[in-house]
């Protein structure tokens, strides 16, 4: 919060998803909010997009991964790359935003957490008594400055819409930007490939966000609607938990919460946020 006061908040220079490309046709307008600031997205007759603030000034805009992206500041970096976006054979699924009364950073952190599967997504992504999180690895990729968790393994009764029966699913997690998380998971119909499930989080305020799940899946036989419903079912199970987390803002002070081994990704994510000065939605000092 102090960073915003000085006007140097790095959160303002990040790209954020603020709408689904396909649902904005020529002549359509969508009004939304980004970091407490009202913005208007418009698609002109020629198909080009503009994002404007209340004072009429334009924001940078681009379309990728099914979504419209913008920024309140001046992003000095390209939008992160998701190469699976253009890989042949994948179904790309826009799931729509789900609004959650929580910090945008908490939404990402929850997405990175495996330990909650058996308790929140009971009999779908996890089940009792298979609650143990096996040791896994976390590192910050130096070149791209991204948080990665690898070698994550978990027993799941129904890991994906296309999975029949329980399997041990292997995962990787990738955080390419402070409010984006990508999950790579074993793809039952295509051994050797990874399904990817992503959340793009649009911060409306420090304690309110729209979460845009997006998927790039190899899937046999399921309709896009079925895939959306599966993802929405999972995400709505998370929503109730997220809205009840205290404190609402994500604590970045290591004194505030005691992590366990299973929280390795969360610890790395919080440190990484702190290093980048990404404090929008965070609590930096023990209250």
């Amino acid at each position, binding site marked *: 919060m102090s960073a915003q006061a000085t006007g140097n908040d790095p959160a303002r220079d990040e790209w954020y998803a603020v709408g689904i490309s396909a649902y904005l046709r020529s002549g359509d307008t969508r009004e939304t909010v980004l970091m407490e600031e009202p913005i208007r997205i418009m698609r002109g007759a020629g198909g080009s997009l503009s994002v404007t603030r209340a004072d009429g000034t334009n924001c940078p805009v681009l379309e990728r991964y099914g979504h419209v992206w913008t920024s309140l500041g001046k992003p000095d970096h390209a939008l992160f790359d998701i190469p699976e976006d253009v890989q042949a054979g994948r179904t790309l699924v826009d799931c729509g935003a789900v609004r959650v009364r929580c910090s945008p950073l908490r939404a990402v952190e929850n997405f990175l957490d495996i330990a909650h599967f058996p308790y929140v997504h009971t009999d779908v992504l996890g089940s009792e008594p298979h609650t143990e999180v096996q040791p896994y690895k976390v590192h910050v990729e130096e070149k791209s400055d991204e948080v990665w968790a690898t070698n994550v393994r978990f027993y799941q009764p129904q890991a994906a819409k296309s999975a029949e029966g329980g399997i041990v699913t292997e995962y990787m997690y990738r955080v390419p930007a402070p409010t984006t998380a990508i999950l790579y998971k074993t793809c039952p119909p295509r051994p050797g490939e990874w399904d990817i499930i992503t959340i793009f989080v649009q911060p409306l305020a420090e304690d309110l966000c729209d979460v845009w799940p997006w998927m790039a899946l190899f899937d046999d036989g399921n309709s896009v*609607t079925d895939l959306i419903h599966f993802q929405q079912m999972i995400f709505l199970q998370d929503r109730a938990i997220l809205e009840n987390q205290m404190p609402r803002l994500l604590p970045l002070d290591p004194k505030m919460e005691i992590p366990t081994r299973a929280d390795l990704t969360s610890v790395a994510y919080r440190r990484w946020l702190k290093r980048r000065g990404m404090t929008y939605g965070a609590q930096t000092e023990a209250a």
Partner: protein
Amino acid sequence: MGLRLYDYILSGSAYKARLMLALLSVPYETVTVDFYPGEEHRQPDFLDHNPAGTLPVLVDGDLVLTDSSAILAYLARRHDPSGTWLPDDAATHAQVLQWLAFSHRLTATAGAARLHDMINRDLDVDAARRGAHQAFRELDGHLTERAFVGERFLVGAGPTIADIACFAYVALSPDGGIEHDDYPALRTWVDAIKSLPRFIEMPGIHALHGLRDDNPGTVKSSQAAQ
């Protein structure tokens, strides 16, 4: 030819139909409709089935039902040989109809607040929440009186379709910022419904945790839909 349910996983009204089908052990086929974000319920193909563009829709042969209360009544008449879910007795039957009508108030208030909070539906959420609390007070008052005479459900001697109709949007209301803390009789009633054999969940409505392993009749919604 079997039953076909046009369904949306997050719809409380569609859940009423799914729950009733599960409680009566009636097999059915699901047609998933992309209500959000795709708004498939407003497309011509869907409007052919239901010009009102609402979910759920239950199809049984030539019969097409588009109102959740009508669907509950049909399922009870057609698939409940015991007749307890929709009793014949004139007074009890009329009371069931009264609570079915009341359930639409819950949809319009608690259900609307949930759509606002969850998918940013444009509406007056304060008015929706006030309306929901008023309806909850009435429901809680009624259930308190029922408890005094030893009854756990809204009408008659056991659970009826009135309970199922009212349950969905009461149980989902925390999704719309409406908590149950001030309504003790309502909470007890919610647990009584969750204790019914073959009860199913939906996102936002959890089974009673202790019953998960002990009650073989309790199944998860994801399995029940298969």
